């Protein structure tokens, strides 16, 4: 058993080594050694993200759709505003997310296009497949046809590649054989050739590394499962003695965290809305309890309503309010004063309520767009100031 575990861990180390080589070949320097990955699983290692880069990392991850506690300074169970330390396991999980979303393939494509300047971007092939794929004979025949078409194109490309190699070889050997005394133009041409040679070599290394990685990828994901298990187990242990902000009973930590985050978000809103919030607090609690507890590890509310995750919870709260006969009110309205309608019974006419909602929506959208623009500008300024970081926008 011990030998098997040892064998497995050796295999995992080799697999991670393949990943590291691939990342290095893709131009992402410096790549941590495989052992750092293993230690990261057990949350070892020092604070790995320098403070000045932390915001960049968070912003970059958020743009890919990744949301984790540490990105919002929210730590489940502990409350408060202090920024949680980013541990290496969090980063490892984030890396797993990025790999799963295909960022690696995007990066590789970008890198290949930079290394191979003769690549033509092919026109997008529209196979004109019907929307619902039936398994009847006509669709199968069409599929066979398309596969055959692709194979032909593949063979054509292969022969073009061979011709190109053949010609490059001829050019290179003609250059060597001619032994002309070096003039500026021949120096230039040989420099260009050397550069091309280096690029092709890098390209080959990259593609080989990718192939090697693809062969062993499954093992990596099995190992990542175990990392995630560790993470979840630790999280449960941490929360076994909860420090609830409101003191009310917790049903499940996912839903509680959602509520906790909502609370904190609302805390940060301008004071004009605080009155409203207080009035809604009970309803939210109720809604929160009634809400079915589910959700993934990464479900948390990004700034101000731009994620799908938060909509269910809001609509749940929404519904709770309607059931109690309260006037329809959005969670974060512009400062209209607390006396707007919190105490009055359901006497607000529908047309007025609709108008109110539309107005609110417009204001919120405007605010969101302004915020986005500001974020983007800030991000670009920060990137501009740094040398070695490249921003790959989504």
């Amino acid at each position: 058993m011990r030998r098997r575990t040892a064998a497995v861990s050796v295999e995992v180390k080799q697999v991670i080594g393949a990943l590291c080589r691939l990342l290095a070949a893709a131009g992402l320097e410096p790549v941590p050694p495989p052992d750092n990955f293993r230690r990261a699983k057990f949350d070892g290692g020092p604070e790995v993200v320098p403070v000045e880069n932390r915001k960049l990392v968070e912003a970059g991850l958020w743009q890919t759709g990744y949301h984790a506690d540490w990105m919002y300074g929210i730590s489940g169970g502990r409350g408060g505003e202090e920024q949680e330390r980013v541990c290496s396991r969090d980063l490892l999980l984030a890396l797993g997310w990025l790999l799963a979303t295909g960022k690696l393939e995007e990066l590789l494509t970008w890198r290949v296009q930079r290394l191979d300047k003769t690549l033509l971007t092919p026109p997008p092939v529209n196979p004109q497949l019907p929307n619902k794929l039936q398994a009847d004979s006509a669709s199968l025949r069409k599929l066979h046809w398309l596969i055959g078409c692709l194979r032909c194109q593949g063979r054509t490309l292969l022969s073009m590649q061979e011709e190109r190699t053949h010609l490059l070889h001829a050019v290179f050997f003609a250059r060597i054989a001619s032994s002309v005394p070096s003039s500026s133009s021949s120096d230039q041409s040989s420099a260009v050739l050397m550069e091309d040679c280096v690029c092709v070599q890098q390209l080959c290394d990259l593609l080989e590394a990718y192939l090697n990685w693809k062969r062993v990828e499954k093992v990596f994901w099995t190992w990542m499962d175990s990392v995630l298990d560790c993470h979840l187990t630790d999280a449960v242990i941490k929360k076994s003695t909860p420090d609830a902000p409101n003191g009310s009973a917790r049903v499940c930590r996912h839903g509680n965290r959602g509520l906790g985050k909502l609370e904190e978000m609302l805390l940060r809103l301008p004071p004009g809305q605080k009155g409203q919030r207080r009035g809604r607090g009970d309803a939210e609690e109720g809604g929160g309890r009634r809400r079915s507890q589910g959700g993934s590890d990464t479900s948390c509310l990004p700034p101000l309503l731009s994620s799908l995750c938060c909509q269910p919870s809001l609509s749940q709260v929404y519904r709770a309010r309607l059931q109690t006969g309260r006037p329809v009110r959005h969670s974060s309205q512009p400062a209209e004063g607390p006396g707007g309608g919190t105490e009055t019974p359901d006497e607000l006419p529908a047309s007025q309520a609709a108008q109110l909602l539309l107005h609110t929506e417009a204001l919120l959208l405007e605010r969101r767009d302004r915020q986005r623009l500001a974020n983007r500008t800030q991000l670009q300024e920060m990137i501009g100031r740094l040398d070695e970081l490249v921003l790959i926008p989504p």
Partner: protein
Amino acid sequence: MSIVTVQLGQCGNQVGYELFDVLCGDALEGQRRVYSAAGCERFFHQTTRGELVARAVLIDMEPKVINQSMSRASRSGMWSYGETAHFSQKQGSGNNWANGYCVHGPRHRDAVEELVRREVERCDRLAGLMAMMSVAGGTGSGVGTYVTQCLRDIYPKSFILNHLTWPYGTGEVIVQNYNSVLTLAHLYQLSDAILVHENDTVHKICAQLLNIKHISFGDVNRVIAHQLGSVLQPALTADSRGLYGRNPLGELVSALACHPEYKLLSMCTVPQVPSVSMAYSTFNWPSVLKHLRQMLISNTKMEEGKLYRIQSQLSIDWQVRPPAGSERTRSLSGSGFNRSLANLLVLRGKDVYSAETGGFEDPALYTSWLSPGEAFNSWKSPVPFNKYEKCATLVSNSQALLRPLDDMVGKAWNMFASRAYIHQYIKFGISEEDFLDGFTCIEQVISSYSQLH
């Protein structure tokens, strides 16, 4: 961008010679530098003295035809075959496919492969290989199949096109149908596309259109060469980005034969007129294309010269000749309408860009699962071909060959049922199972084509 041709057997060597003659004549004609350069590069290799040497390997089990072809080529003064690019033996294959495939093929494999390799290495880039043969005899069919198999092994990624000449229905070789079935069954797995010319059809063209009184094999071969050449010479294709295409076989295969069950291609060319009348004939694209389309729909390979009344664009009013054959063939292609899987139109000559090819993009011509956009392709060249001011060739993957194929299999099966001449094949190593496999394969092809709706 160069095609290496392997000429196999008597028929293959004779047709091949005519083909290179047409190609060379066309390439060297007039002041068409770019076209000439492209055409020469594709089919010929230039020696240091500027002479054109065909990129071809000649293979036969008897020396007579090879010697004839080589000497005729040298005498032309314009081109020649490579002096050592041929292989022959003293005795033939006796019209026995098994003799060719099981005995001669393996015995001389190394020599043949070496010859082909030499030709391939002389090419800057290999566009593909074309094997030319007949299916009726023993060498072309048997050795040809074996050689195709070897080429497929050596060049797995290259495009391999087989040009087959189908024999006269009432041909001289008793076992021609056995040979044909065995050849087709094997080639279907090996080849990327199978281009077919039927002797019967070409004979009719010679008789009725070209007004030749005493038709020789040379006349027939020249018609075949003209049709084949009109497809293989350089042309501007959709993928070639304004230059002459450099991947003719690949583009042919991807335009017509992507589906592994549908590889049989037939051709027809308009116009075909005697050379003496050429000077007095005027052609215009609309009438040329209209005739071609009629020929496609009604599955006739030549303009009948009669007036047809066509009610709508598709429902054809005239009586399509009932197929001379059994009940079975009547039901093969349903209403007699020739359904296509894919079509390739090659237009060459003056004002080619003004030619309207919309008639070939009618969805009713094609099967339902392939849109006309994918099923129809056209290549153009502003350069007149082989002395025709305007020339249009349609290469079609359609039900056109269904009836001849079915006839062939029917006759072969009748003979096999009584095991006639089977012992001659068994003694060289082909078993009855191999025959049955062959029949099954061809029946599958027939079934696939019958079901093109």
